[in-house]
């Protein structure tokens, strides 16, 4: 029982070949688009590399770039096949390659689906990575004289200004860290000594934030220091003041940004998957129709095109048997005689079984 059989006369075959040629070139452009998408995503992730602890999320753009390049090559091969399909002398050389082509194309579709799934699934890992990276960024904010960390301050300030966020979860993260370097502290001043003595580690902690946390939309000039002290500023209430600083944490801001990027590429990737699947199906029809036509006495006559020669189950069984025989062939040499002895034993038991019912009947 053939799966999804369709009749093709010569004209329909020609139309199919032409349409598929156009569709394949469209698929080549889609492959280029997927590659560019991967490159863009990777650049965006690399730009904020310093506040991410690990690069697990990079698997998404890496797969996109790989699939994009492979898709360009695969669909270009499909265009060549289409061009040669109507020429009976040139088509046979593609016969061997086509099975491999179908496998590769199906694999590409699966990888694209996997990318869509991964971009949702890796959100938790991204957040973890950002949490640790931002914590380190805040901790090393003051170390502008330590080689390797001297740009942390600038990076973090620009990050907070660009993404309109403050701290890791919120602005209170800055209260727990010494973000003013000891080089700029007057250790003889009473205030400084008090603050250093007020905590176990001897750090200069204050209820203040850097200037990059300031919100330009606030109606009053920015208050950065003595934030928890209502009496330090006129007409100020710590609990109800929400416009003074950015209320969002940078981890949330960055996660939203990257999730937004990946979600907006979702529909594009899904439509590329659809196009690739239609190329695969159309090429299968073309292959079977042209092969059927070449087998006829009159090559211009009608032929049938189908997806699978037998039904899905039977094809699956056949493929399973083929794969198992291939595995067994690979195992014959090392095991040698025992296999043959087993086969003889199996044959003996079969003949015994055949012999045994006869006395009963």
């Amino acid at each position, binding site marked *: 029982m053939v799966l999804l059989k369709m009749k093709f006369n010569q004209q329909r075959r020609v139309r199919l070949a032409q349409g598929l040629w156009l569709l394949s070139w469209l698929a080549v452009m889609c492959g280029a688009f997927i590659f560019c998408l991967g490159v863009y995503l990777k650049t965006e992730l690399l730009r904020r590399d310093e506040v991410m602890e690990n690069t697990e999320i990079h698997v998404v753009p890496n797969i996109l770039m790989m699939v994009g390049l492979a898709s360009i090559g695969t669909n270009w091969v499909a265009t060549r096949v289409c061009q040669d399909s109507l020429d009976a002398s040139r088509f046979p050389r593609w016969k061997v390659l086509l099975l491999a082509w179908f496998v590769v194309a199906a694999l590409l579709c699966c990888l694209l689906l996997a990318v869509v799934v991964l971009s949702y699934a890796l959100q938790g890992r991204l957040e973890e990575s950002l949490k640790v990276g931002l914590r380190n960024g805040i901790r090393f904010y003051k170390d*502008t004289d330590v080689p390797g960390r001297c740009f942390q301050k600038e990076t973090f300030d620009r990050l907070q200004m660009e993404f309109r966020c403050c701290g890791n979860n919120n602005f209170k993260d800055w209260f727990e860290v010494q973000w*003013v370097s000891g080089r700029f502290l007057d250790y003889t001043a009473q205030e400084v000594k008090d603050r250093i003595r007020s905590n176990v580690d001897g750090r200069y902690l204050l209820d203040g934030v850097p200037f*990059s946390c300031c919100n330009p939309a606030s109606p009053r*000039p920015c208050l950065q220091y003595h934030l928890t002290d209502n009496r330090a500023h006129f007409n100020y209430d710590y609990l109800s003041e929400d416009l003074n600083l950015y209320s969002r944490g940078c981890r949330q801001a960055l996660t939203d940004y990257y999730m937004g990027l990946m979600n907006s590429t979702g529909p594009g990737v899904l439509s590329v998957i659809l196009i690739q699947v239609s190329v695969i199906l159309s090429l299968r029809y073309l292959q079977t129709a042209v092969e059927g036509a070449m087998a006829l006495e009159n090559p211009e006559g009608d032929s049938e095109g189908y997806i699978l020669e037998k039904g899905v189950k039977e094809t699956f069984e056949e493929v399973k048997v083929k794969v198992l025989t291939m595995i067994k062939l690979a195992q014959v040499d090392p095991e040698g005689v025992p296999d043959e002895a087993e086969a003889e034993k199996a044959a003996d038991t079969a003949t015994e079984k055949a012999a045994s019912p006869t006395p009963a009947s």
Partner: protein
Amino acid sequence: MSVGKVTFTKVEREKLAEVLWLLNWISVVTGAILLGMGLFLKMEIQKWQEVMSEQGVLYVPHMLITTGLAACGINFLGGKICLDCADTNKFLRWKLVMMPYVICTFFFTACILAGALMCYSIRSQLEESLFLGLRHSMRYYKDTDTPGRCYLKRTLDLLQIQFQCCGNTGYQDWFQIQWISSRYLDLRSVAVVDRLRNNVEGKFLMDSVPFSCCSPLSPRPCIQQQLNRPLAHFNFDQQSQHLNLWRRGCRQALLDHYTVIMQSISLVVLLIWLFELLVLTGVRYLQTAMENVIRVGDPESESEGWILENSLAETARSNFNIIKNLGKCYQVDDDPNIDVPAMMAEQEIKSEQVQVQRTS
């Protein structure tokens, strides 16, 4: 003696018509580019409209937009005309339109040149506009509760952050205005009252700047207060002071930003102008060649094309006479069929004089 006379065979005329058709279509594309650049410039100026004092600067993008639209229209028409010019019969349809079309194209090409030159000349006007606009914005920075001015603070903060600048000419401009609203000043405090009494106008002036002047490149946390007294801060040496705030004034920053945009736009417009000049010359040659063919009467023969029929001086003189005589259409001329009472009166006076002489 014609200016730029060239002889065209029939084949050459047809070739010229085809080439001009193609060039006209390319001109439609360049017209669209002109339109796009005008729209882009308009958007860029409108983005920071609040820190500019008058909107006179907008006439440049408006000029570019109208010229771009005119370019698309005129060159589209020109494409149709040139396509028809390859055939003498079809040309007769357009015969009357050709001369006005050439004149329109000439004026419109002059407009393109004017647009390009305007982009260069606008710099001084822009600087003045920015100076006044920034001074105005800084003065009303604190008025976040006044309708119509409540977003000036945010605009100015975002401007200083994005363009990495501070104040009008430099950060000291903030020392001369009160940028903290009285709503947030404790007017009962002695320190505040002292400051208010310190100057004639009763403004709360401080040697401090808003947070948006802070530079992230500084190795130390930003120092915004008491900038005139470096000793008030620990270890605040010259280098720290240099890196602490943005040194550039916002007027200079915005001026540089717009100058770059306008210079690149005017370069592209000049190139488009040269291209349009080429198209204009070609169309003029085609027009004169086709008219001469019709004058000769034989469509297959050679004809001459030129830019001007007579020399430059004679053409200028004849055009000037045409313009002069345009105003004289209601005056009397020497047509004998017209009743001229003035001349009869003169004759009567003369005959009387003769009679008087005879009698005397």
